[in-house]
């Protein structure tokens, strides 16, 4: 009879000491798609960081003797209309695309999460006001708003990042707000109040850590969206400025030579596709791995 062991020898919990993140990692590792996404993302990040070392040519050096050459041993992915090496431009372009993805989503998180937490936790008129602003911003299509903001700020890569970041913020406000409202009524939040926590500490220490998983999933998917948005802005000339390479601006210049030099369009398009696919796979895997309902 277990009751006879009172009060000092309660049965011992099984010995698996594992924090929630370690458990999520273990579950993520079992998912092939997610691991594929993670590997490709890390590969892209490594290539972007080591661009000066791995790029075979200077990405902006022109060569009139090698204009629009198809892929060859000298230029693996061919050359563009002014003789620049496409592979080197893709490698350097990864910097623009990935940093656009990470920085703009970072901006969106930095504004969206605190505002969403405030709206969800405080409720009342603060919530009503913020939610209406969010509704208004979400009523405008994502890309249209990003283009409008980028045009307003002026064409440059950093302005494009800011524009994309601001455009992606409402989604994070709304998600954080909803998750906060759901977490706010949990017993452990009430327990935190009963213990004597001030409100700011309840919001940061008790609510926020419990809503990180859905935010992480949304962030990885938003990076994919931001990469596309950066490509679109660069394609339109509002992002990375020539001659600096970016996948979007490479597509832009390639469209005029699509019949004569299809490799100029194919490789940047493929890079965008691959990076976006990888972030999406990673996001999907994270969603499954972090979902507490899955064992």
């Amino acid at each position, binding site marked *: 009879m277990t009751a006879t062991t009172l009060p000092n020898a309660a049965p011992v919990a099984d010995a698996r000491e594992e924090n929630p993140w370690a458990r999520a990692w273990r579950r993520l590792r079992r998912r092939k798609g997610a691991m594929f996404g993670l590997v490709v993302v890390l590969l892209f990040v490594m290539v972007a960081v080591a661009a000066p070392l791995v790029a075979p040519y200077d990405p902006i050096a022109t060569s009139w003797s090698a204009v629009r050459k198809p892929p060859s041993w000298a230029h693996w992915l061919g050359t563009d209309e002014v003789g620049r090496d496409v592979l080197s431009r893709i490698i350097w372009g990864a910097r623009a695309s990935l940093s656009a993805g990470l920085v703009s989503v970072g901006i969106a998180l930095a504004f969206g999460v605190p505002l969403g937490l405030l709206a969800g936790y405080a409720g009342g008129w603060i919530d009503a006001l913020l939610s209406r602003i969010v509704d208004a911003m979400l009523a405008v299509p994502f890309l249209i708003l990003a283009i409008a903001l980028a045009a307003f700020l002026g064409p440059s890569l950093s302005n494009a990042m800011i524009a994309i970041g601001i455009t992606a913020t409402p989604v994070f406000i709304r998600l954080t707000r909803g998750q906060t409202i759901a977490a706010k009524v949990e017993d452990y939040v009430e*327990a935190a109040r009963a*213990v004597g926590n*001030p409100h700011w500490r309840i919001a940061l220490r008790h609510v926020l850590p419990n809503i990180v998983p859905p935010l992480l999933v949304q962030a990885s998917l938003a990076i994919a969206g931001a990469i596309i948005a950066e490509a679109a802005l660069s394609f339109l000339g509002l992002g990375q400025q020539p001659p600096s390479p970016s996948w979007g601006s490479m597509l832009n210049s390639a469209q005029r030579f699509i019949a004569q030099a299809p490799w100029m369009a194919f490789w940047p398009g493929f890079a965008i596709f691959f990076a976006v696919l990888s972030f999406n796979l990673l996001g999907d895997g994270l969603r499954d791995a972090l979902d507490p309902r899955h064992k």
Partner: protein
Amino acid sequence: MSPLLEVQGLAKHFPVKRGAFGFVSGHVRAVDGVDFHLGAGETLAIVGESGCGKSTVGRLVLRLLEPTAGSVRFDGEDLLVLSESGMRARRQRMQVIFQDPYASLNPRMTVGAMLGEPLMLHGLATSEATRRARVGELLELVGLRPEHARRYPHEFSGGQRQRLAIARALAVEPQLIVADEPVSALDVSIQAQVINLMRSLQDRFGMAYIFISHDLAVVKHIADRIAVMYLGKIVETATTDELFRNPRHPYTRALLSAVPLPDPTAARERALLEGDIPSAMNPPAGCRFHTRCRFVRESCRVDVPALADDGSGHATACPWWPEFPPARSLTEGSGQDQDRIRLARLQAAFVTTQTEAS
């Protein structure tokens, strides 16, 4: 001596909003005028069906909910006039244990962080080392081990989690712990452990409990006094022995006769409650129990009975109770005996465990 806790006219009406514009269409009178008091080191049980407002009373006393009306005096001080930060400081002296230990522990906080938090908030452990020592001590107090501090709640069983919740409540050495159905989510065998733990901690530290429950067998074991609630009001309050020996209010009598018997062949006449508990949005006029009372009279539909103390501390919100047949004839002899036997067995289990443990 003034009581540790004195509650008067406590009420909580939740507004009910309807439609797109959120117009208030009515109020749920979850708690509607409740008075009670509690001495230091005493255990008061609040019992009643689900929906009677007993959990709300617990939250109102701790001011986790803001009352609509009434006063809560803790150690002579009115809690309801305190500011937000003033109330936060008082929380050191009153703590809570929730029903569901799977929901009441933050899943992303280690046990050590969870137990250290109240110490840090109330300035009870200034250095990291004293905090860690105190956390280890708390874990041992509730029958766990200091090295469990590194773990997360999901690594513990339900009973162990409830022990953790008790340790968290205990951390600040409160004078009052409100326990909201602390064992009803646990297995019966674990219930006994947790109840015993709560009792031995009370013997040791002398805090008062408000023990909210619907399980009369458990309540009989832990409570000094019992308050029976029905639809937001207290209908009867007495010492535990007196209430079980001599229930007066028809509702209390029905509740007591509904305690299940271990022997299904034991015959007894049950004072069964018919129908459902009426809506608290629109409670019956007069005595709130009149729609289900087997002794209902014409005047019950009009007059609101007051909770009248007979001088011995046994108060009943029914003026007609002296005229009812004695409770014994309601629950036939055998049934009553079966109740006694079951309770005696339960208590015997508790007593042996305590002596063996000490």
